[in-house]
């Protein structure tokens, strides 16, 4: 820079300036409080109002919690203990009801000695779900996920091990038949062959196989009826099985809704809108009141299965919308790339489109599951014992008549822990997918 102005004073720094502390108002707690709580009249007002609200809530809740009684046989006993310790009429929670009855809220009337079975089933479920939810785990683990439903079914309902195994056998045979047939005929025909083999296996083979094998190699657990299922276990079973069972149907509906084929498109849209337009509770009443009308005369199966079928159909419509979003998010180039290589529709869906679309859809599917899990509480209205139903049952006993909020807090907390952690997971995954997408 030779053309510096003549007036510009020459300057060369002799020593570098050390770092200095900012003025007091700019650092630490003072700055933080000023900026975050009292930066203007509106802000001050908001701070004061929310402090009052928080104070009011704490004033009511803290003593109630603080004075809570955890060991008592009934509500009146609870009251006695309270009167003794804190004086009559003091605000006090009687959490003794939870100590006394928590196992019912969690397991319903499942036999107490067999609690290890639902617990093991839960562990199996978590192991099975992890390779789906965390893509970093080895893909081979998905095989375990595929057979885990049979293990869980056997653990929960008990009975002979050969019943779920023969169902599994049907599916394996169907897959083998499909693979063999697809070498010779078109994939659609091969799929039909697979279905036919499965139906034959279940219809002809499964019954005799189960009875014979049970006689030869009697591996069985004590059978537990659906009537004994209840509490969070019931909510979880209904939610999980509905989501898993609804995935295939939901994917088909999403493909149908994306399809160019007029009739298939309209049928998918009609089904989705019909299901989504009517509240779940109406569908549940349909399951309990009407399903028997639609099935062949004389069919009768237990209410829990009917509910699972209905909730499956219900969640399929919601899953379909989620998957449709995933399909729409894929660039058109992916479809064209698959086409230009000569893949047919099912191949390109199976190998290219769905793996990507489903990956994008996982957060949405998790959110659907959260909604469904919360909605399983509605089964109380058709007589199943979900946590809320059990809270009513507990209150109906003479010991605990009049206990409300302790039960609500416990149930609410359980739901909150499950749903909140799942929603955190889904948000984290969504962010990760967005980063990858960029």
């Amino acid at each position, binding site marked *: 820079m030779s053309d510096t102005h003549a007036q510009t004073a020459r300057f060369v720094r002799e020593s570098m300036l050390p770092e200095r502390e900012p003025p007091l108002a700019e650092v630490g707690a003072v700055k933080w409080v000023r900026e*975050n709580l009292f930066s203007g009249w509106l802000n001050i007002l908001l*701070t004061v109002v929310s402090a009052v609200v928080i104070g009011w809530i704490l004033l009511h809740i803290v003593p109630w919690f603080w004075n809570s009684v955890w060991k008592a046989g009934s509500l009146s006993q609870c009251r006695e203990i309270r009167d003794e310790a804190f004086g009559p009429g003091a605000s006090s929670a009687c959490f003794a009801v939870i100590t006394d009855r928590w196992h019912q809220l969690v397991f319903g009337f499942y036999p107490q000695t067999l609690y290890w079975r639902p617990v093991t089933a839960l562990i199996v479920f978590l192991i099975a779900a992890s390779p789906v939810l965390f893509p970093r785990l080895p893909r081979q683990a998905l095989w375990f996920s595929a057979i885990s439903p049979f293990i869980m079914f056997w653990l929960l309902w008990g009975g002979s091990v050969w019943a779920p195994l023969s169902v599994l056998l049907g599916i394996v045979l169907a897959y083998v038949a499909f693979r063999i047939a697809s070498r010779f005929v078109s994939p659609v025909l091969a799929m039909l062959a697979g279905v036919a083999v499965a139906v034959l296996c279940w219809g002809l083979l499964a019954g005799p196989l189960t009875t014979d094998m049970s006689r030869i190699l009697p591996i069985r657990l004590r059978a537990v009826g659906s009537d004994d299922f209840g509490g969070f276990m019931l909510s979880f079973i209904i939610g999980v099985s509905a989501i898993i069972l609804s995935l295939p149907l939901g994917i088909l509906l999403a493909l149908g809704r994306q399809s160019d084929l007029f*009739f*298939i498109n309209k049928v998918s849209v009609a089904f989705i809108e019909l299901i989504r337009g009517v*509240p779940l509770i109406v569908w549940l*009443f349909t399951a309990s009141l*009407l399903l028997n009308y639609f099935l062949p005369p004389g069919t009768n199966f237990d209410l829990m299965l009917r509910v699972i079928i209905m909730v499956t159909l219900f969640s399929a419509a919601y899953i379909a919308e989620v998957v449709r979003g995933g399909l729409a998010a894929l660039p058109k180039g992916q479809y064209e790339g698959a086409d230009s290589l000569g893949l047919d529709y099912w191949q390109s869906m199976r190998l290219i489109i769905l793996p990507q679309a489903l990956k994008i859809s996982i957060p949405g599917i998790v959110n659907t599951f959260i909604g469904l899990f919360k909605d399983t509480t509605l089964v109380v209205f058709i007589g199943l014992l979900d946590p809320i139903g059990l809270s009513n049952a507990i209150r109906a006993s003479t010991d605990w008549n009049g206990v409300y909020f302790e039960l609500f807090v416990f149930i609410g907390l359980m*739901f*909150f822990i499950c749903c909140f952690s799942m929603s955190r997971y889904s948000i984290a995954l969504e962010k990760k997918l967005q980063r990858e997408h960029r």
Partner: protein
Amino acid sequence: MASTVDASSRQGFKLSQLIYDTRYRSLTIQAIAMALLVLFLSWLVSNTVQNLSDLGKDFDFGFLGQRAGYDINQTLIPYTSGSSHARAAIVGILNTLLVAFLGCILATIVGVIAGVLRLSKNWLVARLMTVYVEGFRNVPLLLWIIAIFAMMTEATPQPRDFREGGTASMWLWDSVAVSNRGVYIPAPVWGPGSTALIIVFVLSIAAIIGFRRYAFRRQEATGVLLPILPVSLALFFLPSILAYFVLGGPVSLAYPELGGFNFQGGLHMRNSLIALWLALSLYTGAFIAEIVRGGILSVAKGQSEAAFALGLRPSRTMNLVILPQAMRVIIPPLISQYLNLTKNSSLAIAVGYMDARSTLGGITINQTGRELEGMLLLGLFYLVLSLIISGAMNVFNARMKLKER
């Protein structure tokens, strides 16, 4: 493909063309799908017919004309137990619509406030709103409904506690009573001359709309900005207040008063309505808060920076740049939340609120044994309602769609 058509017609039609020819393939698939569907549906129908005849029932909507014979505790239109089932159904439908309408309004207010406050720089408020949103979103609505209902019935005073020397007192200068029988609020009494007051009010609203139009036209023509907000406020309040006094106070309030064992006069809002309304609004409000927050965050920061760089003031930036873009993102999911709220109002069953499901889909079915017809009508009602709402949403989306390549 003109020439190929010739080619194939020359060779004649082959059966394999049904599968491999792109022109027939889709028709073949659809025909098969349709056949399967028809088969399935006819299977369902034949089962139903068989089952109905086994039970000695028929399929008939005649029961709607019969005497209902049960009471409904909240009726918006005249109804007695002697009215027909159809009228009971309508009372229920109106009750559903009432709680849904009230819920949508309160949920929007709560949701917008919570959503905006969650973005506030005020640490305390933002945290408080986060706790509210997460707390309500992650706990089943049903639990909130029964918890709020329990709070209303178990933790509020009985009417007799409001007597002289009792433990409870009314709120807001003795005008609102919160008791375990429900909430009592003052009811408006329309005296003579109130029609004129309403006309004045409607006219002032019309004047506000007219003034705003005029102001915008004026601004377009001359560039001069008129003070819109103060004039609108003045137009809104002044004429009505003036008219109220000129007409000698034609509208008065009837206050609830304790008489005997209960309150008399005023408007009685049942606990079932209040619990359902509050729970629905707070629950849906939490979802709306997230939608609002997401909508505001979705407008890129560059947008407001660009507007500031052009010299627009923050309030103008909000009105002219941020809100129009945020609304586009907010409104569609907002409407689907309204839809959810409406459907969730069927949880009225938990608190004994007499909505469509409780009358048409509940007591009527139990009394007449017409499950099939009753559930069909109930489903149809919800379906039509949601189709109307989603239809409105589609119209909105089509209109608001950003013009993009």
